[in-house]
């Protein structure tokens, strides 16, 4: 089963605008990660936020985590056409041998 559920399923914005993508999950987590996938290629790790962190930044990316609501958001500021891709959130539960469970993804289109 896919624990992470992203919202919206698809997002279309104009270049220069900000893109906000949301993720909800069901159980307690050790960390939450966001990945990007360009069409037909492998996933690229963007950012990892631990359960005891509330916000993290990396370049134009800002991730928040609300463990009380079991949700996270990924904000891409000043979007570019090259940001067009699918974005996935993935959660890792507690436990030494826990693996990442991915959501179905959000398709982001940035119009030039």
């Amino acid at each position: 089963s896919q624990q992470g559920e992203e919202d919206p399923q698809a997002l279309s914005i104009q270049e220069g605008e900000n893109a906000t993508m949301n993720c909800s999950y069901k159980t307690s987590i050790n960390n939450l990660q966001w990945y990007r996938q360009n069409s037909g290629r492998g996933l690229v790790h963007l950012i990892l936020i631990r359960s005891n962190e509330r916000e993290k930044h990396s370049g134009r990316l800002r991730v928040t985590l609300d463990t009380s609501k079991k949700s996270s958001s990924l904000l891409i500021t000043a979007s570019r056409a090259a940001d067009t891709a699918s974005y996935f959130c993935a959660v890792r539960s507690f436990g030494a041998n826990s693996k990442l469970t991915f959501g179905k993804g959000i398709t982001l289109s940035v119009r030039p």
Partner: protein
Amino acid sequence: GAGVSQTPSNKVTEKGKYVELRCDPISGHTALYWYRQSLGQGPEFLIYFQGTGAADDSGLPNDRFFAVRPEGSVSTLKIQRTERGDSAMYLCASSPDGNNYGYTFGSGTRLTVV
């Protein structure tokens, strides 16, 4: 190597045939994962290796699927008696320890069963 390498990049096979998919992880990464991704879906977990041993194989759909990592580096995913429903992108990823880092994914093997 510099990244995770998967071979072949594409594989077309006939229903009922046996296939092997190879993954060469980043040198020194002890954790290795196999995922399967269908069109429009997120990656679905298959199996996780920590070193040479399968720490979690709960995602393997049935006994036609098997994976090995005999020396703790290269891994092979083996599918027997392939079915059309096995057609998907098979993704391999590695991580330094599986707990505190993100995964580095390979480019995947696109398997098509005809």
